[in-house]
């Protein structure tokens, strides 16, 4: 057991120990000099991070960038929040979750990119219309949309073949087809479960079961629009109904699982982004398709972005250098390297057109690039994490464990969320 209360009070104690942070420091905005940054700890992103820092440092000996992986913690967001409070956050973090941005912003931890003369225009030019999803309620960009991992449906061809299901055009387009396929997979002994997204009650788990299907079913709606929850609706109830059946028929796992259920064959399907291509290589002979909708998948249907962005933190003294480095690291050249080294999709408009050679050589990634143009982000609203936790609790009680009617649970959750974001 971890002494969390002690950790909590220690966090409080360090609150007064940091250096000077000032969101609107005009001198810092143009100041140049050494900066630090954190990136994610997966091997591919570490490799990309190291080369981009090396390339920058070779050309800018007076503005040296020091980089490291995000320090270990319960979650990256908890670590970043603590570092904001302590005043020791780095200048840039290349793993900022859009869902955490409203909290970081409320803490006074983020610098609006609009502070830089070309801030908003750079974001808009790079990401196009998709950038609008990343503006905060005050109309400013507190994050640079960096990369997405459009969530699609992976399926295990070996398991499908064992169950006598087509591996080239599996019937997974409609909810009826999806359920029938799931039943066939489990009853035929092809896999213990048809699909096994984490049933955990962590706030972000709904991004991998409910949200991709809701984005598809609702025609690209966010969870909250104009201060109102949108999921207490036909599309929301349809998605909840599908998953309720999957759990009730034991086609989806309800228990904690320590491994990767798709990789080890426990589940025949998984919802994941292009990061999974490298992860499942040599482990699973997989195919990929869009998540189902009630009436059938369409080419241009939406899905959840699972994006990670870059934010500039107020503890940064040399923000001029940080902004220049941010532009350097999200240039067309570096985005190309990110794509090559990680397989994740830079949030850049016309991605397929920008890197035709890469997608011609890597057709498995091309399908995700096409999907990247139709991604839906988490809503940028006050109390975003609390909103998602409220939704997850309702989902868990009703859909996973069947203790409440899903429609009633969605209505109750929508009412609570409407109060939260009011």
């Amino acid at each position, binding site marked *: *057991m*971890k*002494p*969390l*209360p*002690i950790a*909590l*009070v*220690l*966090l*409080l*104690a360090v*609150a*007064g*120990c*940091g*250096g*000077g*942070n*000032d*969101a609107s420091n005009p001198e810092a905005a143009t100041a140049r000099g050494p900066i630090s940054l954190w990136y994610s700890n997966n091997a591919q992103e570490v490799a990309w991070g190291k080369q981009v820092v090396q390339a920058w440092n070779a050309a800018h000996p007076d503005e040296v960038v020091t980089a490291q992986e995000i320090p270990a913690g*319960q*979650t990256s*967001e*908890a670590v970043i*929040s*603590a570092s*904001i*409070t*302590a*005043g020791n*956050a780095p200048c840039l973090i290349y793993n900022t979750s859009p869902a955490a941005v409203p*909290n970081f912003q*409320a*803490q*006074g*931890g983020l610098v609006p990119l609009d502070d830089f003369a070309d801030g908003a225009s750079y974001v808009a030019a790079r990401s196009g219309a998709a950038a609008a999803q990343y503006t905060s309620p005050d109309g400013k960009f507190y994050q640079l949309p960096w990369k997405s991992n459009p969530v699609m449906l992976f399926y295990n061809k070996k398991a499908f073949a064992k169950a006598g299901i087509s591996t080239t055009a599996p019937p997974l387009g409609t909810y009826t087809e999806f359920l029938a396929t799931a039943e066939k997979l489990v009853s035929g002994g092809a896999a*213990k479960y048809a699909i096994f997204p*984490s*049933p*955990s*009650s*962590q*706030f972000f788990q709904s991004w991998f079961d409910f949200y991709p299907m809701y984005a598809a079913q609702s025609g690209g709606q966010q969870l909250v629009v104009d201060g109102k929850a949108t999921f207490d609706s036909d599309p929301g109830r349809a998605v909840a109904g599908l998953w309720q059946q999957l759990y009730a028929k034991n086609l989806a796992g*309800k*228990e*904690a*699982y*320590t491994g990767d259920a798709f990789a080890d064959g426990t589940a025949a399907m998984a919802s994941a982004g292009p990061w999974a291509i490298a992860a499942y290589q040599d482990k699973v002979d997989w195919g990929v398709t869009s998540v189902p909708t009630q009436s059938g998948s369409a080419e241009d249907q939406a899905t959840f972005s699972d994006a990670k962005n870059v934010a500039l933190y*107020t503890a940064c003294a040399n923000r001029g250098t940080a902004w220049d480095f941010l532009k350097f690291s999200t240039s067309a050249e570096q985005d190309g390297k990110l794509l090559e080294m990680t397989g994740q999709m830079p949030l850049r408009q016309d991605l397929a057109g920008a890197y035709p050679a890469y997608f011609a050589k890597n057709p498995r990634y091309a399908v995700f690039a096409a999907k990247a143009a139709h991604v839906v982000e988490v809503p940028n609203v006050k*109390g975003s*994490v*609390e909103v998602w*936790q409220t939704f997850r*609790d309702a989902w*868990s*009680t009703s859909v*996973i*464990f069947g*203790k409440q009617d899903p429609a009633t649970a969605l209505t109750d959750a929508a009412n609570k969320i409407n109060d939260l974001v009011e």
Partner: protein
Amino acid sequence: MRRQPIGMLFSAPYAVFVAAVFAYPLGLAVWISFHEYIFTAPGVSVPRPFVGLDNYSAVLTDPAVRRSFVNIGIFLIINVPLTVALSLLLATALNSAVRGRTFFRTSFYLPYVAASVAVVGVWLFLFGSGGLVNQVLGSAAPDPSWLINENWAMPSIALFVTWKQLGFFILLYLAALQNVPKELYESAAVDGANRWRSFRAVTVPGVRPATTLVTLLAIITGANLFTEPYLLTNGGGPSGRSASPVLLMYQRGIEQGHPDVAAAIGVLLVAGVLIVAGAQQLLERRQR
């Protein structure tokens, strides 16, 4: 007795440590619980008005928080007596000259030093729906299985924690058993006491101070329950039936940015632990 200034000097570092790491943060947490408070970057000025008992009212009217205190009550009712009884019995057994004593002592201590994350995997394997326990029980196995069963999730966690912590408490009892005079056992034997009678009349009273310590520590560590519901039951599931107050403190305070509400839960938890521990002390004094 003359006061020794040098003693003050020697104890000062620890006193400073306790003041800085425990007393000050605890005081600050109490202060936060009476204010509207968010963590901010240094230099960022936000209003932090006094809100009286608003945070406590929010916490006490929140069904999830109330449920978490009930959960921890269930946990303590199972875990504390089981810990005391099993650790004393096993320590007594290990204290006698049995073959392979060192092996057993190490075996009992191993789960305590192993990381929870690692041993949780073993328990998931044992208590999962297709796990070993259910296979042995057959049709008598609960449905839904232990860790996703509303009635069994918390008792399962209590059992897990008892098993995991047992090695440490056995060590405490083993140390205490060294202080029980051998003559008492000899005279009990002369009086015709059998092993059970001797255990009850000599061992149990002889290790009473250790029992007090074990009980207190079990209550305190039990009240701090976090990792097990986080990992074993999917973050306090099913439907919050194994959520602990500390898990909710983490969610509310760290994840959701409401340290004021989290502090109120923490203060209530500290108060609850003090009350339970006080009642236990009172009960023990009366028994003496």
